[in-house]
């Protein structure tokens, strides 16, 4: 296997509040290899977005961060603010959920892409502008020359997200982080934007972390999946391992709880209860109170993320009891 591009090691992110520290990310370790798409899946509060923000170092000063993030030989958490700024947008770029608020309403779309380019490369205005138009064309914005001179409000939601993607890839980053990139869009537009995102990712050869709650999106777009719950990684594996050979009760319950577009299921199998509080989390496995397989030990010890096969790991003390019947185990 190639040398990983990103190596996150025992990352912890805590937000101090009046009532104590909200531990949004606990002991998260993972790697992203060049050119691959890693999907990070979880419900709200699972820590998936906070992990991404930590990699970009886009968190408030008061945030408590532990562990280490190694990106292409650079110790991200050890950089000063100036050094980090030169990494951000050039080596690592981010695409946000809401293209409405991520673009500045008082500048033209072209201007904003030019600005993104010139933040890292000393190129003359006309060269940067030409490049901006090319980028818009690349992400499928029709009439890119004319559209570059328009303001964000003249763009529809889908077009705005395309512009965001153009801006993100303007410096050919090695890593793209897409945080719920299509959640705010209509279904038919979602499909278009995902297509663009995958195309540019393939063309530029950059790696991508795709953060989403939508398991359908994951099934079609990712190489590997990391499932998070209550600030921890619950399971990680190839896409088929997660969807067909899961060794984690949470992953299985999550997959069981979604209605199916193709099949007819009369009764859904919900996960009972609610996710635990991250401020004073209960001891033991975060999923134990909702888990149908929980045993008494689950509420005392936090299980380790144990390898199942090469690349497949699960955090569950009953991992050996979770064997897929008739599966490729």
């Amino acid at each position, binding site marked *: 296997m190639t040398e990983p591009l990103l190596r996150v090691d025992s990352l912890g992110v805590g937000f101090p509040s009046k009532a104590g520290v909200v531990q949004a990310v606990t002991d998260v370790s993972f790697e992203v290899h060049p050119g691959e798409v890693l999907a990070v899946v979880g419900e709200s509060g699972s820590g998936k977005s906070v992990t991404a923000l930590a990699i970009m170092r886009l968190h408030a000063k008061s945030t408590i961060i532990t562990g280490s993030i190694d990106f292409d030989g650079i110790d991200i958490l050890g950089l000063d603010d100036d050094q980090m700024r030169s990494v951000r947008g050039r080596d690592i770029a981010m695409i946000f959920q809401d293209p409405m608020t991520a673009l500045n309403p008082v500048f033209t779309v072209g201007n904003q892409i030019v600005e993104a380019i010139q933040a890292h490369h000393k190129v003359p205005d006309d060269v940067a502008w030409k490049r901006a138009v090319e980028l818009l064309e690349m992400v499928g914005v029709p009439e890119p020359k004319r559209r570059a001179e328009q303001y964000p409000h003249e763009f529809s939601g889908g077009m705005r997200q395309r512009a965001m993607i153009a801006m993100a890839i303007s410096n050919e980053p090695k890593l793209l982080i897409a945080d719920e990139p299509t959640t705010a869009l209509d279904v038919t537009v979602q499909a278009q934007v995902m297509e663009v995102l995958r195309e540019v990712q393939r063309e530029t050869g950059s790696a991508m972390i795709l953060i989403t709650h939508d398991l359908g999106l994951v099934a079609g777009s990712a190489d590997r999946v990391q499932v998070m719950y209550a600030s921890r990684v619950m399971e990680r594996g190839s896409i088929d391992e997660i*969807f067909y050979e899961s060794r984690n009760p949470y992953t299985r319950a999550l997959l069981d709880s979604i209605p*199916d577009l193709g099949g007819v299921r009369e009764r859904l199998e919900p996960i009972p209860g609610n996710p635990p509080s991250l401020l004073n989390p209960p001891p033991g496995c975060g999923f134990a109170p909702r888990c149908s397989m929980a045993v008494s030990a689950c509420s005392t010890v936090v299980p380790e993320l144990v390898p199942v096969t090469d690349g497949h790991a699960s955090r569950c003390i009953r991992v050996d*009891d979770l064997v897929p019947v008739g599966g490729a185990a």
Partner: protein
Amino acid sequence: MDQPTDRPTGVEHGIAGSGGEVRSFAYSDVLTSDEAVALEGLSEKPKSFGRLAWERFLRHRLALIGAIGLVLIALLFIVAPWFSDYAFDERNVRDRLLGPSWDHWFGTDEIGRDLFVRTAQGGRYSLRIGLTVAVLATVFGALMGAIAGYFGGWIDNVVSQLVNLILVVPALIVLSVWALKFGSSANQLSIVLAALLWTRIARVVRGVVFQIKEQEFVMAARAAGASHGRIIVRHVMPNFVGVIAVEITLLLGTAIVLESTLSFLGLGVKPPNASLGTLVADAKGSIDNDPIRVLTPGFFIVLIVLFVNFLGDGLRDALDPKSKAEH
């Protein structure tokens, strides 16, 4: 696994090992577990809204200081003259321009009146105007704002234009003209001030109501058959009391300052009565050699406005059910 067209989790996930602990998700299980979890987060004994608001208020240290401070000042203004041997308009030519002493706590003015008693009298007058204006302007402004915001359309247009019109009128000039032409009793001044100052509240309330009425809970009340009156009283108003609490205190401060300004300019209260503003005005000649005479009434103006603002802040937090009782 040979049927790729199966459901997403196409594989039958069997659970090997001891079967005893395996539980299925029957519906009743879902509910009981949910109850358990629901209870877990909500185990503390519930308290009434009033009690919670009171607790939140008590923990808001500045608000408490503001409230106690205001009560003390009011008490001082009301009670103090009882213990003084002087009346507020009693002249004592021999005791002109005395400094603070045991006999005259704040000293005396140019015609020998006791400044402590006069400050108390002026303070009462200022507070009275402030309170009257705050109440009148808030009630009227909130009503107009709520109506404009709730019904929208031409009603909103009329109210908004009226508000804009009044906002561009320079308050001080209108007040001066009014005072010169019609006199300046406390009641008259209060009414004119209120007529000028309700617009701020109306604007704020209108904006808030505009937001609130679009909220789904208002839609839900309509779906249940609630009348306009019920919706306004039960759903809209309680959601802007916090905003009003802040505005009413700001208004009280503004009214006191405006009245003081008028009085300072000689257009407010007429002698021998005093307000905090006239006391500053009367003493302005001695600002160089005897600054304490200007500073005392000025100090009370500042103190009242400050305390009132503290109070408003605390009220807003106390009336917000979402704010936690930690400060």
